[in-house]
């Protein structure tokens, strides 16, 4: 008996050991060999290959080689980065599987002082610090074209010898995870295209930066330069837009000569694609408001009146759209407030039926104008970006004057109860604005039907401050998009230049999902505060006026006047102090509303349901007690 027990115990022990081994083996095996089969529950399908990606892969014109450089050794104590590397690797593998052999993927660990490390740096990857023992961390992707028919398994050729191209994603920042698919698909797309489309830029703003002064181009332009061959065009010498320009960006047009306008006019009528950015108040325009030499004035606004008139476009360069519902929060002198001229256009303000804006979530604009059609226009205006219906129009000068006190723009606010069009497609048959040049050779009087011009009534949306944030990861500065302004511009140019494959991938960011109810409370608080402030300021002004009225009476009975005046002055000062206190109380009370909401939610979540559970338990217990007592009787 005892020997039997001993043998069974041994058997159980061996079985347990075997079970542990099998368990560990299965877990490790499944993580390595089970393919990435998954269900993506995210609202934007962040982890599923987008149709655009599939199209790009299906349309690849030649074999591509991808090399993922990842410092396996240096990242052994960086689990977040290793986890993200698995994700990147899986996406690359899915793309490879989709390509049916056209994409070849290699994963390399560039250990310190190895040829692989030199190769990684040589191909444009950037190393981050923070690895084990201070080692550098590489985590980037190099893509290169391969000659047609070459053996995919062969050693990598020297790209310069074979005439291939090499492009890189310097570093996969985990905070850019929502753009992962786009970044890789863009790399594939760029490698696959024989050459970059040519686009032209005419701008009175320094969008291309200044190499002499060391100023970089605006981020939106640098993004365009990755996809397109961007040429700067000097409007002063412009007589004809080159035929190879697929898209022309006209940014902040001011004082263009007739020759330049005519060139643009004919470019559009000839089928060229034009994107116009005008602005009633371009905050990045550094032209002095008054020229010291000539005395000429400059309002920092831009317009295209001659062309707009013939296209049927109504645009007032002296009018700015305010929208208190879409006002962006800013910090001014340490105070948080909402700026009614700085707007965050959300999903409801973007046209989701248009390929350019369909997948975008948010566009930030500042002191924007708006477009309309004239009553006699034969063209159509298809909105891309709009304000909400809670918007009104004010003179641009008022917005400039209110730069120190943006909430003053809410005084006398009267919404027009209609959304204003901030960006749109102008579509139809366009007429030349220069009928007087009809006799010039090659002159075009009208465009083909369904010709198109993109109109945008803001230039500030191009500036970094409205959509780019700089963050640091492992000592590496990284630009992070907080809005889709860059995507909007790139989508426009892509759309107009005929490449639509990347559209469905872009703008899948959902990183910003604020508490909209709290934001609404804050806006209401700002409104109440302003109203109270105005009332109290009126009272203060009245008191001040009554004090002033006492001055002329000085000539009479001096002692009485002095006494009365002194009382009024004391009264005035007391009232002023009281008003300041009341304003602070109003502010405190409005903050308290937001805090009160938080408190109520905490009570509901922490106290209410547990209390219900206690109550149910007590009722159940009482019922059982009663039943037991009856049974006993």
């Amino acid at each position, binding site marked *: 008996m005892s020997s039997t027990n001993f043998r*069974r115990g041994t058997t159980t022990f061996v079985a347990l050991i075997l079970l542990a081994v099998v368990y560990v083996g299965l877990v490790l095996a499944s993580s390595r060999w089970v393919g990435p089969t998954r269900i993506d529950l*995210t609202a934007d399908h962040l982890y599923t290959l987008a149709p655009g990606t599939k199209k790009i892969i299906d349309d690849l014109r030649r074999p591509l080689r991808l090399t993922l450089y990842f410092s396996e050794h240096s990242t052994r104590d960086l689990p977040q980065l290793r986890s993200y590397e698995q994700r990147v690797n899986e996406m690359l593998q899915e793309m490879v599987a989709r390509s049916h052999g056209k994409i070849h993927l290699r994963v390399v660990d560039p250990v310190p002082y190895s040829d692989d490390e030199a190769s990684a740096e040589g191909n444009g990857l950037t190393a981050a610090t923070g690895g084990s023992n201070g080692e550098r961390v590489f985590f980037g992707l190099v893509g290169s074209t391969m000659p047609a028919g070459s053996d995919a398994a062969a050693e990598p050729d020297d790209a310069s010898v074979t005439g291939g191209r090499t492009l890189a994603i310097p570093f996969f920042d985990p905070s850019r995870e929502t753009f992962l698919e786009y970044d890789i698909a863009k790399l594939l797309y760029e490698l696959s295209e024989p050459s970059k489309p040519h686009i032209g830029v005419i701008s009175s703003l320094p969008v291309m930066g200044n190499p002499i002064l060391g100023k970089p181009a605006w981020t939106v332009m640098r993004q365009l330069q990755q996809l397109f061959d961007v040429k700067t065009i000097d409007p002063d010498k412009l007589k004809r837009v080159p035929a190879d320009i697929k898209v022309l960006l006209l940014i902040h047009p001011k004082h263009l000569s007739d020759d330049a306008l005519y060139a643009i006019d004919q470019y559009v009528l000839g089928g060229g694609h034009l994107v116009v950015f005008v602005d009633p108040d371009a905050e990045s325009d550094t032209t002095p408001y008054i020229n010291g030499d000539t005395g000429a004035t400059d309002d920092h606004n831009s317009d295209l009146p001659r062309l707009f008139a013939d296209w049927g476009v109504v645009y007032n360069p002296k009018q700015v759209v305010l929208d208190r519902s879409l006002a962006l929060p800013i910090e001014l002198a340490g105070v948080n407030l909402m700026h009614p001229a700085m707007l965050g256009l959300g999903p409801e303000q973007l046209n989701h039926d248009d390929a350019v804006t369909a997948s975008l979530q948010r566009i930030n604009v500042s002191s924007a104008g708006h477009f309309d059609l004239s009553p006699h226009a034969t063209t159509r205006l298809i909105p891309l970006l709009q304000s909400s219906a809670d918007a009104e129009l004010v003179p641009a000068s008022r917005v400039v004057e209110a730069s120190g006190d943006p909430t003053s723009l809410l005084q006398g606010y009267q919404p027009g109860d209609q959304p204003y069009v901030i960006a749109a497609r102008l579509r139809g048959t366009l007429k030349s604005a220069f009928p007087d040049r009809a006799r010039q050779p090659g002159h075009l009087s009208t465009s083909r039907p369904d010709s198109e011009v993109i109109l945008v009534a803001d230039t500030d949306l191009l500036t970094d401050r409205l959509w780019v944030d700089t963050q640091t990861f492992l000592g590496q500065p990284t630009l992070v998009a907080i809005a889709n302004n860059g995507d909007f511009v790139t989508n426009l140019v892509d759309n107009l230049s005929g490449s639509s494959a990347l559209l469905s991938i872009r703008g899948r960011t959902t990183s910003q999902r604020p508490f909209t109810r709290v934001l609404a409370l804050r806006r209401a608080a700002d409104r109440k505060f302003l109203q109270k402030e105005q009332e109290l300021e009126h009272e203060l002004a009245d008191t001040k006026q009554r004090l002033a009225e006492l001055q002329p009476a000085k000539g009479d009975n001096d002692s009485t006047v002095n006494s009365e005046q002194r009382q009024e002055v004391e009264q005035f000062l007391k009232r002023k102090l009281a008003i300041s206190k009341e304003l602070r109380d109003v502010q405190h009370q409005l903050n308290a509303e937001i805090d009160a909401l938080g408190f109520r939610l905490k009570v509901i979540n922490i106290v209410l349901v547990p209390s219900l559970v206690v109550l149910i338990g007590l009722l159940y217990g009482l019922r059982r007690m009663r039943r037991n007592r009856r049974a006993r009787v």
Partner: protein
Amino acid sequence: MSPVMAVTRRELRSFFVTPVAYVFLVIFLVLAGILTFYVGDFYERGQADLQPFFAMHPWLYLILVPAVSMRMWAEESKSGTQELLLTLPVSLVQAMLGKFLAAWLFVGLALLLTFPIWVTVNYLGSPDNGIIVAGYLGSWLMAGAFLAIGACISTFTRSQVVAFILTALVCVLLILAGQAQVMDFFQGTLPRKLMNAAAHLSLLRHFEAIARGVLDIRDLLYFVLTIVAWLTAGVLVLDLKRTR
């Protein structure tokens, strides 16, 4: 009715006959709320997602799941009902499965009762509810893994206290296996392959992967394997005890 279902129903009912279930639910809900709002700073951070809520679940389960599992078999052994149970026409596998399912459903009920936080986040903003669904599912799977570990360990001992402590200890190890600080501490002494294997065995790593909103078959497989392995181990121990 199948024996598994019969055991499940009996076990579920036994939870609610005594105040233990209600005490557990109250503690679970209060702690979940406090951790979410005060440790996770849910309201003040102003973001419409439940990341602060789910990030606390591994630690919440660490304390509360052993309290559920410790009485599965330890009490049976102590009060003598184990002998009675093992003489009934119910196989060990069925008994183990029934007890486990009852406990898992009970913890699932606790999870469902946190629905006010889901209502709250939808009231305050527009969260990605797909990610929240994945978070709840991942949380329940993790609870199942913890319960399976607890069920197995409670077969080792007659003492509920010992069962609680051992279960909590094993769960801590599985949580810490994927933590950066722990990996850093051991990096100098353990081979890299062993470190990577430990990370793959970490509960936290697979839970976090699901909570991002993606149900990957490998993460699901990990949890299923973990539950099956620990329950099987428990059955083996019970089988050994039955012979004595």
